[in-house]
């Protein structure tokens, strides 16, 4: 009886704390009016030291990739002998807010493409160069550089008749149990966020800072790499990089995080 009472009490305290946290975070990330749960970036679950690492451009190792991307931006490539700069000009103005809108619908492919696919489409179509491999240093550098131009801007995923089926497919995937552990994304990231999985806090799965520098990886990786990690964790067959299902899931996750600010290049434990 006593124990039950104290559990109840700590539950009340937790509720109060949650309410306090909500009012504090509401000002920071501005959850949409329709949302009842406060949304938190993975940043909010990190330790002080890791936050400091992300906040300081001189300490954030992701900036090494951003600098590489800056160099690649103006390097001519492919048979066309053109650089990104030749078409897009200064990325600091032309790429501002672009990463916050991806995955975005591509009329030619009749489906949403993520930023990496968009970069490779430019490479093959405009530069007449071979596409960059997923998770290659150059592709991560370019997507980190483009992503960096949207830092601090809210994620804006436009959903219309063309993209809705893909969003629905992504949502369905998020809620679908899979793998030998028979878990869905939602069971951890909607129902149990804030609790611990082994030593790690389960975040809400808002992809605000990709590509991220992950301490565990000792390097930068894409959202797809992270998603494949989770699939491996639940002992499911990891989807191929660039597969339609993975991009649909990315679209859903970015839509779910709409209004939250881009942190690229974020640091995560």
């Amino acid at each position, binding site marked *: 009886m006593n124990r039950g009472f104290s559990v109840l009490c700590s539950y009340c305290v937790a509720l109060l704390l949650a309410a306090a946290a909500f009012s504090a975070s509401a000002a920071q990330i501005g959850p949409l009016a329709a949302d009842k749960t406060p949304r938190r970036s993975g940043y909010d679950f990190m330790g002080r030291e890791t936050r400091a690492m992300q906040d*300081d451009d001189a*300490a954030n*190792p992701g900036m*090494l990739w951003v600098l590489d991307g800056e*160099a690649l931006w103006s390097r001519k490539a492919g048979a066309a002998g053109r650089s990104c700069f030749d078409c897009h000009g200064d990325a600091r103005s032309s790429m501002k807010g672009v990463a916050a809108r991806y995955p975005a619908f591509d009329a030619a492919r009749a489906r949403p493409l993520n930023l990496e696919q968009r970069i490779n489409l430019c490479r093959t179509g405009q530069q007449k160069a071979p596409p960059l491999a997923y998770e290659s240093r150059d592709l991560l550098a370019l997507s980190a550089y483009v992503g960096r131009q949207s830092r601090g801007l809210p994620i804006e995923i436009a959903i219309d008749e063309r993209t809705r089926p893909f969003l629905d497919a992504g949502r369905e995937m998020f809620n679908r149990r899979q793998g030998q552990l028979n878990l869905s994304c939602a069971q951890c990231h909607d129902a149990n966020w804030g609790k611990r999985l082994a030593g790690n806090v389960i975040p809400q799965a808002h992809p605000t800072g990709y590509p991220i520098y992950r301490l565990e990886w*000792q*390097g930068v990786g894409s959202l797809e790499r992270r998603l494949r990690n989770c699939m491996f964790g639940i002992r499911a067959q990891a989807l191929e990089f660039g597969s339609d299902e993975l991009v649909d899931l990315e679209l859903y996750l970015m839509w779910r995080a709409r209004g939250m600010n881009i942190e690229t290049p974020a640091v995560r434990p």
Partner: protein
Amino acid sequence: MARAIINLPASARRGEIIEIKALVSHDMETGFRRTQTGGLIPRNIITDFVCTYNGAEIFRAEFYPAISANPYLAFSTRAAESGSIACTWTGDNGFSLTESAAITVA
């Protein structure tokens, strides 16, 4: 692409203690890992870091295989005179990288 970022205040008062931050891009391959077929991946690490202030050494560090990839160092020194602060990383396979920044001391 070998790349480094060093960060220090552009100007300081004479005698002021300033912080120098140095970040370098490097895999820091330990030499203990193996490939899927069992072959040893050869060690490839940064072994030495030296920071000089107008040519005089102010900080030195030796790196070992347990240091993480893309190592980051922060240390402090006293701003003595205007000039240049240069950081040099050297390591296996002839790795050598120098990055410098100017400081104005008033």
